[in-house]
């Protein structure tokens, strides 16, 4: 398959799909799972994890030609994402429900810096760009935040506003909200 993600070998380790009863082993298991999730999401530029749906994806399944089939259980995945939330690499979308999570393979602060640098480098300081342009415009093509999830983008912009680096002008929808960058190094 084109652009396929190559999983580390532990993804084929059958007990990797069972929540380990020993605390230290489990901590390590959860950390390994979160590394895989983050790498997978970064690779495919994904931002949202719908738990029920994704349990069917290759990410949380393992089949080999000796007939071994393993699938992560919902409770295990929830426990893994809980540990990611603690580390700031994920966020439950509507807690206390644990059905959907935002995955931060870059933290909002990092996205904020990337966007501000892009403004500085392309000389767009003090002009107004729309939220849509930042994530989907031609000028951001080829930049890592091109295609960025809107929830994450808004978090990043909020950080820039709080820092006094940007100002937001309300539009009729989120897409045509305007953002003015002051050209200050955040």
């Amino acid at each position, binding site marked *: 398959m084109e652009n396929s993600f190559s999983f*580390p*070998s*532990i993804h*084929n*380790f*059958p*007990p*990797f*799909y*069972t929540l*380990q*009863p*020993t605390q*230290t*082993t489990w*901590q*390590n*298991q959860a*950390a*390994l799972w979160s590394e895989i999730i983050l790498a997978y999401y970064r690779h495919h530029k994904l931002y949202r994890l719908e738990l029920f749906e994704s349990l069917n994806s290759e990410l949380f399944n393992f089949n080999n030609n000796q007939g071994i089939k*393993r*699938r992560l259980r919902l409770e295990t995945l929830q426990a893994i994402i809980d540990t990611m939330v603690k580390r700031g690499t994920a966020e439950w979308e509507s807690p206390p429900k644990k059905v959907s999570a935002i995955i931060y393979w870059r933290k909002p602060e990092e996205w904020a810096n990337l966007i501000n640098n892009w403004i500085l480098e392309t000389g767009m300081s003090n002009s107004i760009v729309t939220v849509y342009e930042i994530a989907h415009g031609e000028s951001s093509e080829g930049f890592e935040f091109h295609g960025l999830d809107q929830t994450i983008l808004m978090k990043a912009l909020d950080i820039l506003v709080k820092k006094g680096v940007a100002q937001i002008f309300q539009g009729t929808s989120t897409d045509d909200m305007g953002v003015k960058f002051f050209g200050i190094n955040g």
Partner: protein
Amino acid sequence: MRKFGAGVSQIKRQQQANNQYREIGNTFADQQMEQMKAQLQIFKSNLVEFSRKYRKNIRKDPVLRQHFQTMCSTTGVDPLASNKGFWAELLGVGDFYYELGIQIIDVCLSTRGRNGGLVELGELKRQLIKMRSGGSSVQEISDDDIIRSIKTLKPLGNGFEILQIGDRKMVRSVPRELNKDQTDILVLAQERGYVTKELLSAEFGWGNERINDAIDSLLIDGLCWIDKQVHPPEYWVPSFFKGVDD
């Protein structure tokens, strides 16, 4: 009275003789020392020449390195014990093992969480080769090199040790004793990568309590992982799972 006078001169003569003996002795020792120094000088210069000539090969070729080690140990010299000074400067051999030692510690510590601090020697070697392949000159390493390096780690007192479990050599980085039952289970697990309680009962004829105790202790030490998605549950030994530490 005469006797007394003669006594004094005799003592004097004696002293004189002693001094002469000492002098001769000293010259003799000096000569020997000179000879030794000369020999050592020759030995050193030969060694310098040898190491200049073959340094690259010693660092590159695990077989030559092993021969070199054996030669050194028969002449009573341990280049590993001197990573500073003459030997290391000339040969860089001490450095080689210390560097490898650091890398071994690195691999063992970074994989401890998933394998409980027990790494199979072949797996460790694979990891080390992968780690070292980033450098410009790739040096081959042998099992012998790894074992030697681990021995140089001994003075650190951090419990690095090589265990023979069944037909495999395992490197243990956690100071912990394996009891007989645990070792037996690890040996049995080499066949399939895992054991089940049923297998243990059939193979060793142990009672439930004994089996549970042994399995629980392996789980607690992180040497085993449980797979509950099969029946009966399987107890996998990550150290025997190829590539688990990637």
